[in-house]
């Protein structure tokens, strides 16, 4: 299926395709019939949103990835690079959003080299919607696409079945209703950058605190003409507290009756340290 040899990494991504979706669906069905269940796909639960302000776009996302009811990743990155002037937030199945955005990013770079121009947001939108429609909703990727091109700032929301909406403010994911409530209350046209950042931060925070599928920190991405500010994290809304108690006992808590030391003839060859998150 996959061609090898002289092609570079970017080209390689082009050739990876979803030949297996139908086969996977059949396999899953057969597996369930036999009584076993396929491991749960990691979803991003999520609150993502975007807003158009005076000079450009602000995209925002939370950072929790869930596997059923367990948090699989406390600090995952949901704002994906598409091109130097276009970024995309992804909700739904984590693998689908990751791969879809990478494929379109690769294709867009080739397209941009072919045209000799900076890619337009409408182009990325078309490519994404045509691909998602082709897979009839089986690719669970709900995206918020935003960027600034020669025609100004643009913001699109793209649904898994392939429909898109072009709007001044959008929210997606399980926390979308909470975030939309904030937007509907406080959105204005032609906001300043700081106001827009605060609005997006508050919308994501609403999703984080009122939706179980969203949590942890708030990532922001501010795109203006010629500049991108990828603020990760912008706001650590859920910092872990410092433990006040300790499970370690003081030396001497247990009385020692006898002590016997045996020396082992060992030589240290290599020493590596890898810290574990035990906080």
């Amino acid at each position, binding site marked *: 299926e996959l061609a090898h040899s002289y092609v570079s990494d970017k080209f390689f991504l082009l050739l990876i395709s979803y030949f297996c979706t139908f086969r996977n669906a059949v396999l899953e069905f057969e597996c369930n019939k036999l009584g076993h269940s396929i491991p749960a796909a990691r979803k991003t639960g999520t609150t993502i949103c975007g807003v158009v302000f005076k000079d450009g776009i602000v995209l925002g996302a939370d950072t929790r990835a*869930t596997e059923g009811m367990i948090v699989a990743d406390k600090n995952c990155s949901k704002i994906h690079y598409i091109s130097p002037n276009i970024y995309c937030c992804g909700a739904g199945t984590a693998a689908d959003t990751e791969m879809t955005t990478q494929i379109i990013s690769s294709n867009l770079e080739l397209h941009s080299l072919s045209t000799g121009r900076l890619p337009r947001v409408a182009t990325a939108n078309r490519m994404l919607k045509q691909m998602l429609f082709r897979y009839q909703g089986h690719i669970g990727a*709900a995206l918020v696409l935003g960027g600034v091109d020669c025609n100004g700032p643009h913001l699109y929301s793209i649904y898994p079945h392939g*429909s898109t*909406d072009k709007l001044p403010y959008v929210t997606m994911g399980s926390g979308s209703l909470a975030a939309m409530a904030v937007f509907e209350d406080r959105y204005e046209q032609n906001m300043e950058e700081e106001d827009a950042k605060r609005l997006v931060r508050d919308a994501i925070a609403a999703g984080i605190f009122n939706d179980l599928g969203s949590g942890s920190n708030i990532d922001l991405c501010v795109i203006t003409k010629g500049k991108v500010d990828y603020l990760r994290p912008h706001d650590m809304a859920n910092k872990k507290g410092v433990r006040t108690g300790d499970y370690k006992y003081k030396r001497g808590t247990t009385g020692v009756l006898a002590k016997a030391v045996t020396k082992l003839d060992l030589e240290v060859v290599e020493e590596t340290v890898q810290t574990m998150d035990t906080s």
Partner: protein
Amino acid sequence: MLEESTESEWQSEVKTGTTIIAVEFNGGVVLGSDSRVSAGETVVNRVMNKLSLLHDKIYCALSGSAADAQTIAEMVNYQLDVHSIEIGEDPQVRSAATLVKNISYKYKEELSAHLIVAGWDRRGGGQVFVTLNGLLSRQPFAVGGSGSSYVYGFVDAEYQKGMSKEDCQQFVVNTISLAMSRDGSSGGVAYLVTIDEKGAEEKCILGNELPTFYDQ
């Protein structure tokens, strides 16, 4: 309950719910639609313009699955552009409707969208075509979408042949307004497109400017 709140959001398909209408008058057509797009119980876009451009003087009204309807409209837009360059003049409304019908009929098992095609051309003047389920039929006026069921009586009673442009626009606005107030899947603002020899004129009527009826 917990499962649903985290998973239902992206699994339910985005539908346009909708009320759409197109009416012929002497010298052109008027198309109208509401603006609500829902995914399950959530409204995902409250200002969507469901009157999609197929060509300068040919528009179509979208209803049913948002993805299917948008895709059909974009495909036909492309095919019409090619066709109009090939024939060297503006395409006929019947051609546009035929292109929509071909897609709707060929993929009728897979698609669930209904497009009403309406426009003006030199040969036939203003024309309205329905393409439901892959049929092609020219009608003096047509309604579609989930909200249309509530207004069949109204349009049948109020439509008169030979209405003027302004009367048609008022008729369309009244129909949309009545449907929006009774159908849960229709709402938002009303979009109007008037197409005649001179071109297409788009208008948006906000919620508080819509006509009110009994009980409002």
